[in-house]
């Protein structure tokens, strides 16, 4: 690959990025503000072409309800159509169709060829575009995008809710609670931590992901009273203002884990396995191991860093308890979570995690994201999360301990619909990761692992590529996404006639499956 001159990392260190002042840290708000795409040509489902016959009459600007045609004040000509906002040829059924009103016939609307090449079965082009829309506007995605399900042909994509014909009249949307209690243990002296939405941000390590994206994740966690997670790359000082909303992860490499990082966390997570590479260790490419990353991980610059699998100090659940005791000794107030993958005996693992004293068992299914993993592992090892959630839920119920532990699911949660389905299957809440990155304009090209990392500036530590994101924009995109997700989740609960997200847990009777006889066509 062509070598591109890189700036001196010591001068252009991401840690030296001071564009967000300390004062701004405290003022993260949930306010939805427009956060337009950061590329000049956003990818939309349709393309709108205006040819040279245009006489700049402005009729299209006047008529389009979606602001595809824009003419800024003082301009004679309209801008090139913002076609990612276009709802497509179906617009012809309305009386606001630009093609129909153009006196010169210079407008045409068609399918955008690039759009069709986006995504995959799980993240369809529509899901990607829907997520981008939510991140831009803070509103649910428009109807012309199928933003409820993907096209994977099973699991969440085949599950649907059975909505009653009408929602109860006395249930108001503003009374519906989406709060999630994380500490369910009775007689536990630790804080009864709750978060305002039933999801929190997944661990992405400093080293794998742009620090600006990580800070944006922390900021949205603060804004929405939720959590983000350090991943296993250490705890950069710039996370400290968000310490109340940052989970310290302890993973097998123990990179950057120090007593002070454990001491400042309200929640500490042990990562035993990761759904995207179950049974395998982590691998940070040498190219991504820049001086800052190496300093944080106490490693040599430019070397590949491996996290072994599994914990070398854990042979049994009793050993796991030893781990938890260690954390409790350092920080008696911290809640404890164990992140595990989804093997055959995941139910037993979950009960073991409970018995060892953890507050949260976090199940990470096999379709989750990662910086780099062998394709053979991503496709074949461990079961999809949809199966694991219900198996664990039922087992914990049968063991009589379900109400003493919080079950969190992750690995393939793409939409608020997936959140609701996971909870209906038996989880208390979920962890999201890829959806947040998609909000930052990830197109899932899967190149996070190559050389300098993500060409879109998200999963990279390359000083030049880091510049593609700003903290403000990233934060706003995530704030908007969270806002849209909550709105949709509340709407689902309202239609189901449930007054809280906790009332949805385990309500498999509210679900149907299109492949089963109880499911409609």
């Amino acid at each position, binding site marked *: *690959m*062509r070598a591109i001159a890189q700036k001196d990392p010591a001068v252009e260190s991401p840690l030296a990025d001071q564009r967000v002042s300390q004062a701004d840290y405290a003022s993260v708000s949930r306010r939805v503000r427009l956060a337009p795409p950061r*590329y*000049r*040509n*956003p*990818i939309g489902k349709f393309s709108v072409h205006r040819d040279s016959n245009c006489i700049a009459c402005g009729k299209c600007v006047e008529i389009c309800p979606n602001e595809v045609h824009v003419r800024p004040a003082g301009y004679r000509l309209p801008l*090139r159509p913002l076609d990612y906002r276009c709802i497509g040829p179906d617009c012809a059924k309305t009386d606001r169709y630009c093609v129909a009103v153009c006196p010169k016939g210079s407008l045409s609307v068609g399918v955008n*060829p*690039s759009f069709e*090449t986006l*995504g995959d*079965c*799980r993240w369809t082009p529509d899901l990607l575009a829907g997520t981008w829309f939510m991140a831009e506007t803070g509103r649910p995605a428009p109807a012309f995008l199928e933003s409820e399900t993907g096209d*994977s*042909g*099973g699991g969440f994509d085949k599950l649907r809710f059975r909505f009653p014909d009408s929602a109860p009249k006395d249930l108001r949307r503003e009374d519906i609670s989406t709060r999630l209690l994380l500490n369910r243990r009775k007689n536990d002296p630790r804080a009864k931590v709750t978060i305002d939405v039933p999801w929190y941000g997944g661990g992405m390590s400093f080293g794998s992901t742009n620090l600006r994206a990580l800070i944006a994740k922390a900021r949205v966690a603060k804004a929405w009273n939720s959590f983000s997670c350090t991943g296993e790359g250490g705890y950069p000082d710039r996370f400290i203002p968000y310490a109340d909303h940052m989970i310290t992860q302890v993973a097998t490499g123990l990179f950057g884990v120090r007593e002070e990082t454990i001491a400042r966390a309200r929640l500490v997570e042990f990562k*035993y*396995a990761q759904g995207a590479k*179950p*049974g*395998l260790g982590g691998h940070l490419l040498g190219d991504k191991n820049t001086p800052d990353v190496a300093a944080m991980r106490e490693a040599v610059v430019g070397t590949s860093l491996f996290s*072994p699998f*599994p914990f070398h100090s*854990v042979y049994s659940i009793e*050993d796991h308890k030893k781990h938890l005791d260690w954390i409790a000794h350092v920080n008696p107030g911290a809640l404890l979570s164990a992140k595990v993958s989804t*093997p055959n005996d995941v139910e037993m693992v979950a009960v073991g995690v409970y018995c060892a004293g953890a507050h949260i068992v976090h199940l990470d299914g*096999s379709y*989750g994201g*990662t910086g780099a*993993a*062998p*394709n*053979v*592992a991503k*496709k*074949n*090892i*461990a*079961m*999809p999360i949809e199966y694991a959630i*219900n198996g664990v839920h039922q087992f914990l119920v049968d063991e009589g301990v379900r109400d003493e532990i919080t079950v969190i699911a992750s690995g393939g949660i793409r939409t608020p619909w997936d959140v609701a389905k996971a909870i209906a299957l038996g989880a208390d809440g979920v962890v999201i990761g*890829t959806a947040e990155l998609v909000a930052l304009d990830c*197109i*899932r*090209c*899967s*190149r*996070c*692992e190559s050389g300098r990392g*993500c*060409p879109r500036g998200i999963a990279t530590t390359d000083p030049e590529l880091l510049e593609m994101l700003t903290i403000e924009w990233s934060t706003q995109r995530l704030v908007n996404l969270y806002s849209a997700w909550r709105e949709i989740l509340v709407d689902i609960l309202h239609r189901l006639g449930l007054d809280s997200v906790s009332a949805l847990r385990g309500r*498999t009777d509210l*679900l149907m*499956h299109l*492949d*089963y*006889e*109880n*499911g409609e066509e």
Partner: protein
Amino acid sequence: MPAKYHIDTKRIPPRFRPVGKLGIVDWREDCAGCHNCVKRGCVYGFFRDEADALREEVGYLDYVYQCKGCLNCVQNCTKGILSRVVNPEYRRLGDAYYTPDIVLSTWFQAETGGIPVSGAGYGGPFSGPAFDSMWTDMSEIVRPTRDGIHGREYINTSVDIGRKPSHVVLENGRPKETPPLIENPVPLIFDIIPERFQRGAVFAAVTQAASAMGVLAVARARDIPPASRVDPNVPPGISVGAEEPHGPAIARDVLVPFLADPKTDVEALCPGASIVMVADGEGVGAVRDSLKKANPDRLVAIRMSASPRSAQRALELTRQGAEVIHLVFDAHGREEAASKPRHARDVLRDVHGALVKAGIRDQVTVVASGGIALPEHMAKAIICGADLIAVDLPLVVALECRLCGGCERDETCPVCLEETDPGAAAQRIVNLIGAWRNQLLEMLGAMGIREVRRLRGETGRCMFFEDLERATFGKMFGKRKEEYGA
């Protein structure tokens, strides 16, 4: 410490420019000719490389570094004249089973010997037919060794081919019989390469690759030139560019001659061959006996098409003393049946189960071939009950074949298979198998299994789609609209 088995890989670039998946097209008439052209800013330098390659022949454009589809240029172009498209040639690669993705991934492995790695999550379907409806298990805490990734070299991938008696019978204080056993270092042998691909040095390359790795290679007796024609001074193994007056060197030490005529002179073809193969049929018992009589230390494998009768037939043959049964499925892994042919996944479980039930499983080695397109198919076929698999088409795909079917129609081969250099071709096959073995190690490591022999029939270390569906959604929603696998 004993030497560890290792497959040496070495980068061998393809002879033809490989087919990439994504490309960028532009409509030049709208180009503003601006000075900040996005093509210059490509993160991967793709456009620059392409221009260089067009200007002067600098070899091929590595498809891995071809357009990676990051969309930066498409989304940043001043006039928005660029679009990303899927290469139509890519869509035409392979077929419904050997998908374009599989072909491309096989090429990548054959070139580099590396295992395909990517970021982000898995983007494929929830599950699929055949082997895609199985997930292998993982263990949260058990690992073959406690050394993380560095423990992989302790995982054994050897399998034994032959009969393993359930107990030792002593005679005068010595074992009465010690049946011949061949150790194959990978649970994989090479199967007969379909005749249409056997052009130029292809056959020689396959045998040389097998020899370099110490794995067996099945070949039709009629395809093997008599040993007397070959210069005995040329050692078997990889010899780059070695061309004898009568063709490239064939490594005979690993050949398993498949005898159409049991009277074939094996010694003339493969001196000292430790195993031969015969077709199943009515008089196969007698044929086997006569071959064993001629040389009791030589294994006789019986090759049969997989069918609904396979389990029954395997029982009969094993009881008659068969040592090795080679079950042949079609190219898509299906049995031969008039209606609703089952996939190898189910046939192998059937055969394995029947043999276990009869208490004679270890007396026979079961080889499965056909439809083994990916390394996970090897692991999954073994989980379903095969001792090892035999691989055919992926070996040809490693030599850049696109499975276009042109050779069946007597058309010119787009990658000129007949012009393959035997040394380079052999190394590409070695690279592919090296990568497959590494992926098998990943799967075994995740399962916490330390040797592949213990994986055979170990369905407890995997999860079947229909079982998980029944246990989860079946309980909630009752009956499925369509039967599993329908």
